[in-house]
């Protein structure tokens, strides 16, 4: 047991990988609850593509990739929020246009570079095993900022997700709340890039919260469950990936292992809760 669960983290790079996975797991699990309740999973997915040109431009210009991703993410969050205020363009169409436009700009910038470099591969697939101290601190700062936003606006965000018309009738500014929530999601996406890359980050935002949704009946416990699932899968994903490569000579990318593990948990919980529901239904029928 010790060999399997503790020993991998004796070495420095695994400790750093664990730290960043736990941060992203917890923050993704919490913010994901708002994404799932607001039915904004596709928006989160859109963001993972719209940060691409920011990173590409930052790379060409030799600036900070984090900063590039953050600026592009916030720009797309603002543009998306504003476009949804136009009732003639529905949200899906607005997201599709944003996603493709931003991604195209990224491709145009990248195509000017003759060699695809490691940094851009990291952007797409992440490289959790090589995070350094600075990157951990960046992820922690971005994650904390995201948590602060939802902590401050918690009751209004839940009200809006439940009854958007009632929220407007009560005199709240829905566009500002949308914008705040979308920026919180952006912060998590950018924070998670180094760990799992833009292709996989959506799983950390949606899957733990979806599992939590199946297991709980109110928002508070759902947040706790989302964070727990995110943290547990972040940790176990690293353990599995490490053990596979050291003990069995199978090379599983750590970030991808975390994502696959999350999906396995989701499927198991779906089957278990569905089975429990059917069992209860059958018992009621028998009693009658």
């Amino acid at each position: 047991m010790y060999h399997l669960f503790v020993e991998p983290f004796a070495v420095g790079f695994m400790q750093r990988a664990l730290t960043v996975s736990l941060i992203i797991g917890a923050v993704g699990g919490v913010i994901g609850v708002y994404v799932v309740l607001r039915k904004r999973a596709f928006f989160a997915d859109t963001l993972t593509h719209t940060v691409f040109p920011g990173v590409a431009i930052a790379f060409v210009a030799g600036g900070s990739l984090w900063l590039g991703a953050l600026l592009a993410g916030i720009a797309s969050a603002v543009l998306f929020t504003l476009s949804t205020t136009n009732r003639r363009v529905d949200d899906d169409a607005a997201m599709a246009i944003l996603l493709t436009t931003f991604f195209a700009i990224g491709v145009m910038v990248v195509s000017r570079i003759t060699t695809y470099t490691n940094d851009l591969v990291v952007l797409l697939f992440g490289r959790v095993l090589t995070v350094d101290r600075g990157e951990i601190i960046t992820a922690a700062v971005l994650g904390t900022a995201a948590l602060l936003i939802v902590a401050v606006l918690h009751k209004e965000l839940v009200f809006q997700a439940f009854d958007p018309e009632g929220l407007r009738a009560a005199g709240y500014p829905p566009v500002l709340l949308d914008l705040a929530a979308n920026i919180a999601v952006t912060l998590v996406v950018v924070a998670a890039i180094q760990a799992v890359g833009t292709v996989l980050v959506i799983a950390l935002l949606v899957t733990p919260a979806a599992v939590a949704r199946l297991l709980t009946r109110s928002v508070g416990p759902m947040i706790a469950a989302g964070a727990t699932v995110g943290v547990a899968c972040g940790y176990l994903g690293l353990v599995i990936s490490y053990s596979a490569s050291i003990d069995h000579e199978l090379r599983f990318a750590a970030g991808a292992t975390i994502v696959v593990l999350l999906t396995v948990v989701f499927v198991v919980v779906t089957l278990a809760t569905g089975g429990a529901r059917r069992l209860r239904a059958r018992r009621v029928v028998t009693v009658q």
Partner: protein
Amino acid sequence: MVPALELDHVCVSFDDALVLDDVTARIEPGDAVAIIGPNGAGKSTLLRAILGLVPLTDGSIRVLGTTPRLARPRVAYVPQADTLDAEFPVSVLQVALMGRYRSIGWIRRPGARDRAAAMEALEQVDLADRARDRFGVLSGGQRQRVLLARALCQEAELLLLDEPFNGVDSSTQDLFLSVLAAQRERGVAVVMPTHDLSVAHLACGEACLLNQRQYGFGPIDEVLNPDALRAAYATRTLVTPGDQVILTGHHH
């Protein structure tokens, strides 16, 4: 006394299509007015205009002596329960508490006083014992009562109820009628679009008959006369056995 609601030649149009044309009405505190008209008559649009959620193309609306936007904290809106997601993970008490959010303010969480107010409102609608249950497990009529409780604990001066009697059982209907009567005693004004003419007579002293333009406003018995109803509903036939007005005929 400041009127609860003043509609002065109100016109609303969407994309050049006139939805409301020249609606004028004045509602005093403690009054209840039923907004009557066929589907697509502009009843919900009028409600949204009173909340300041749709722009007027002409005319003006004063709510509690001020603009609709500024009056919102003093106006409670009760949506139709079936427009809300029954799967949403929120308890009956949490829904009722939403009525307190504006007075609680940003950042702060509901306190003991807010919980007490929400519980008292739930007691008024006979659902205090269901406070901890999930909103979605309640019946349609019970959910409608929770939304009424949410409006009650807001302690508003104007209640806007969107089709409150749609799909509710008779016990919920009776409860709504007595709660609304008690609110009117306290000077709260009530505005409710409804399809149900008989319950409109029970709940309201006044009516506004609409189908884009206004076919009448005033005491309900005068406004809802067969001729006016026939004109407003145009294609429909009316039968009046005794003093009861029943609408039949084809939907378009």
